[in-house]
Structures are given as C-alpha cells and as structure tokens.
C-alpha cells in the first residue's frame, strides 16, 4: 500500500530531527546578582528674572545709577558650590561703570523682580566693603569665567548649597564721573554657576 510507506518515512524523518537538536544541547548553570541600581544626582540653579534685564542705564550721565535684586534658587539633589562671573561686551564703557554686588535675603515676602524692597544684606562683611558685599569694583574687572569667578561668598568658606536654598543678590551699577566714558556702551551677562561638591 503506497500511502502507508510514505507515512512511515515521514515519521522517521521527524525522529531524526529531534535527535539532532538534542545532540547540540549542553548543560549550563547560572548564578546571578540581582536588583543593582545606580543613579546620578542633579545640579539645578535658577533665578526669578524671566529673562528680563536686571540693570539698565540709558543715555546716562555721570553719577547715574541703577539697582536691581535677583533671587537665585538651588534645587539640585547634590550639594553644590556657586560662583559668580559674567560676560562683558560693548564699546568700552565697562571700565567706567562701578559695580557693587551684595548678598542677602528678603526680610518679608519677595517683591516682584527686580525690586529690592525688603532686601536685607548678609551680616558678614565679606570683602571689607560693608555688610553682605561680595564684589565692589568696575564692571570691567568683574570675573569673566568660572575659573576666576567670585566664590559665594568670597570669604569664610564657600556656601554648600542644598536643595531649596535661595539667596538674593542686589546689584548696583553707577557711571563714573569721567569724560572718557562719553558715548560708550556696555552690555553684561551675569552668571551664577553651581557645581556639585
């Protein structure tokens, strides 16, 4: 009966295939170490300026001054140190602009940016220029990069900023009484940079 022979051949082929698979198998065993995890911390520094300028002097005359306050907040998970520096551009007015930066806090509820109402300086005289002052010099001499930046604060050991910490900085710029300052401009970016410690 031809149909029966074909069936037998098919059955044999199937058996051979299974045997072949088993020939290639090997013993194996495993040991494991489970549930490892590793996470980096974060460094987050922000301010309340909504990208608006803190200081503006337009068509200024000698003695003209402007003052603004900015709140800097830290929300990173790692402790961090903060430094202040900036980037200056323009046509040379920076040499004739005096800048004073004072560190402090708001004694009451925070006013709208960039008001300094209720600003209270730190009690410490950091650089010998009065309570809370951390920089007192020309805008030109203000540090330009992180490496040369002013530590926060510049004396008595840098503050270790932790999440939720805020400080207020009062910046005052005044045009010197110097004829050489005539018809010049200056533009400044102030930077607070936090790096984990």
């Amino acid at each position, binding site marked *: 009966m031809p149909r029966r022979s074909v069936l037998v051949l098919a059955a044999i082929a199937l058996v051979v295939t299974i045997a072949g698979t088993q020939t290639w198998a090997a*013993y194996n065993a495993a*040991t*494991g170490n489970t549930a*490892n995890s*590793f996470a980096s911390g974060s460094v987050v520094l922000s301010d309340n300026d909504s990208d608006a300028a803190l200081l503006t002097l337009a068509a200024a005359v000698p003695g003209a001054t402007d003052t603004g306050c900015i709140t800097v907040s830290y929300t990173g998970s*790692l402790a961090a140190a903060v430094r202040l520096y900036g980037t200056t551009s323009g046509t040379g007015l920076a040499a004739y602009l005096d800048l004073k930066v004072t560190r402090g806090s708001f004694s009451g509820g925070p006013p709208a940016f960039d008001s300094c109402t209720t600003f209270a300086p730190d009690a410490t005289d950091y650089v010998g220029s009065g309570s809370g002052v951390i920089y007192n010099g020309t805008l030109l001499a203000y540090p330009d990069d992180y490496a040369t930046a002013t530590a926060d604060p510049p004396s008595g050991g840098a503050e270790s900023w932790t999440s939720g910490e805020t400080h207020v900085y009062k910046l005052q710029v005044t045009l010197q009484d110097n004829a050489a300052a005539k018809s010049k401009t200056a533009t400044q970016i102030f930077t607070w940079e936090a790096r984990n410690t």
Partner: protein
Amino acid sequence: MTTLRKISLTVLIAGLVAGVAAFGAFSAFSATTSNTGNSFASGTVAIGDNDGGSTALYTSANNKPGVPVVSCIKVTYTGSLASEVKLYASAGITGGAAFNLKVERGTQSAGSFPACGDFVATLTAYDGVLGAFPTTYGAGVDGKDAAAAWGTNDSIAYRFTVTAVDNTTPGARTAVISSGSHDFTWEARNT
C-alpha cells in the same frame, strides 16, 4: 473454509510450537558468563556566588563624578565538567551612557560580600559605559582571563566599580538619571 475450521488449525499450530519449545529445554547443556556493575552518569555544571541570593552589588543614589561605588563578588564553580563562564547583564538598563562600569577579575580570600577585603586584581574584564555592557551569553564578558575553562572548585572574584560620568556642560545634569534595576548573570556551559 468455514470459520470453525480456521480456528481449529490455529490451535493446532500453536500446540506444535509449544511442543518444540518444551522439547528444546531438555535437549542441550548451557553456560553463561556476565559482566556486571556497568554504569553511566552524566557530568554536572553548577556555579554559585557569595551574595546570599538577593543582595545587590550596588544600590546607590545621588551619585556625583569622581566618587566611585566599589563592590566585590566571588563566583565559584562546582560542576564536574569543564565549563566556559560568561558574565552579562540584564537588558533594559536606562541612562546607561551616564555611568561607567569597570569589572576586574582577581583573587580574594578576606572580606565578605559586597566588601572587597584583600581583593587583588589580575585583569580588567570590562571598562566602559554601563549601557554598553553585554546582555547575552554569546556576547558576554569572559569569566576568566582569556576565556579559560573552569574546573571544579575554581573561584574568581570580581570587583565592580561604578561611577557617574562627568559632564561639565552647564545644565547637563539638572535631572536625576537612574540606571533602573538590573541584574548580572554568570552562566556556565560545559565545553
């Protein structure tokens, strides 16, 4: 042939065969010899470690660059067959580029898991980002230097050093990056 006659013939033939067999049993001397005690047993492949079953090498949060987390684990082979062992991680590690993993092979006789005690490194098995660590046996890291075979009671200690990759770009780490939970497996296959 009727059905009755067919049955009768079958009975007759069966009776004849029985008769011959009965006759044969009485017709010759016999002797036998035997070989006894033969046996066949498969070999074993078995491997273990000293982590107590469920303790991780590291569960570390809020890490920063330059502060490595260092742990050691000792793996011992107890199978009877020579095997090749590979180390690999589970799939699904997240943020793997933000972490560096260094795995060194070595010896260790003192210090209990996950401490490294008197660990002495021989060769570095892997040094790269966690996210690029192999996740299959085929691509796995050699259990021994030069993928040498493991014999019964061979032990290798491994030192894991994990660090957060430095990134000084402002704003690069304003969010926490987590690797997620992941496992390491040493798998032995007989050679």
